[in-house]
């Protein structure tokens, strides 16, 4: 992995300098198998789901309901199972070359526009469920201190709430998705939010809005891994 013109690495020098010793020890400092296993569990089905197709996937003949189970699973993996990003709004970093804004066609503006005013969230639950991040879950201090004011949910926690609400209260799920759009207009989970919102609209029989949002999604995120889910969640 070295080229003729490259200087000798400090860790490869003999005898090693103190800096070389430091870098040699840094190279040995890997996470434990347990940490990697936990990370794999948190990523869940994402690791085994096919990556986004280049061309938009055509609808398969499989049952939409079955596929929605996959949607829920994938979202649980992406959103719920520990992807507690704990960040406020930011621009998603992406593959090396394109600047985030350069890759977003104008249709993405539709996805980042603040939604119509929505009622404030009734209750913000602390992230103590299985969906909480390991760091959050291990934060015993916050778990034992209910008197401490709760922080607003992270991007991932907010969407996990929305995902959980999909089956029981699609209107609440939609409200949470819209809250996410207002709070994280450039969040890293924008695509996941849109899938939830489209599915919630479909469950609420608001077909034209679902279709409109699905069209916006397709334009903003061509080739998205979630396109198939969007196709199946939006009315034909």
């Amino acid at each position: 992995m070295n080229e003729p013109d490259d200087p000798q690495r400090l860790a490869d020098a003999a005898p090693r300098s103190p800096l070389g010793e430091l870098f040699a020890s840094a190279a040995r400092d890997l996470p434990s198998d347990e940490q990697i296993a936990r990370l794999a569990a948190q990523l869940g089905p994402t690791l085994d789901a096919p990556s986004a197709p280049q061309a938009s996937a055509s609808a398969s003949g499989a049952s939409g309901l079955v596929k929605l189970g996959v949607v829920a699973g994938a979202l649980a993996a992406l959103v719920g199972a520990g992807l507690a990003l704990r960040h406020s709004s930011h621009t998603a970093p992406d593959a090396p070359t394109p600047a985030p804004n350069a890759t977003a066609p104008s249709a993405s503006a539709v996805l980042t526009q603040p939604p119509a005013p929505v009622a404030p969230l009734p209750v913000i639950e602390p992230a103590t469920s299985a969906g909480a991040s390991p760091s959050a879950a291990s934060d015993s201090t916050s778990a034992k201190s209910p008197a401490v004011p709760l922080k607003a949910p992270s991007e991932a926690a907010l969407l996990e709430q929305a995902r959980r609400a999909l089956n029981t209260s699609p209107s609440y799920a939609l409200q949470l998705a819209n809250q996410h759009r207002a709070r994280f207009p450039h969040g890293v989970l924008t695509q996941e939010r849109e899938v939830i919102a489209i599915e919630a609209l479909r469950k609420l029989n608001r077909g034209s809005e679902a279709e409109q949002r699905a069209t916006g999604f397709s334009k903003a995120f061509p080739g998205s891994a979630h396109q198939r889910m969007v196709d199946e969640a939006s009315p034909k």
Partner: protein
Amino acid sequence: MTDEPRPSVRQIFDEHARYIWRTLRHLGIPEADAPDLCQEVFVIVHRRLSSFEGRSSLRTWLYGICIRVASEHRRRPHVRKETPLSEPALEVHERQETAPDSTLERRSAVEHMLSVLDEDKRQVVVLYEIEGFSMKEVAEVLECPLQTAYSRLHAARALMLAALNAEKGAEP
């Protein structure tokens, strides 16, 4: 475009996850944030893998994502306010179960040495000295001219050596 079959996300994870984790840590991401940032990297890999055209190696592509995720993380307002580029102290409570004191001391020493560098130089040092990339690959990952990468490495080594000597001079 190479003719080699594109690996799955799972294969990429199995092969690279622990090194991505290590890289994030050495780029100044606190231990507590490493799992979340690793997840971000692999979520992006999942989204973008089908558009990876093989113009660079998969490894340089992957580390390019890793570098950007770490860089973006540090620019987030709450991170800027709450944590400096380098964590001054280890999350000892989290690591004590698995890491002996000597490991913690070594890690602290590495972190201290890398903390004398700005972000650009630190990236070069981490990729070259720790992750074993060639300088050409370092330049590819960082999307900078090769000569710039060399200059950063040279300057980084001088800074670290000066810091080390200053510490030695300060010892009683």
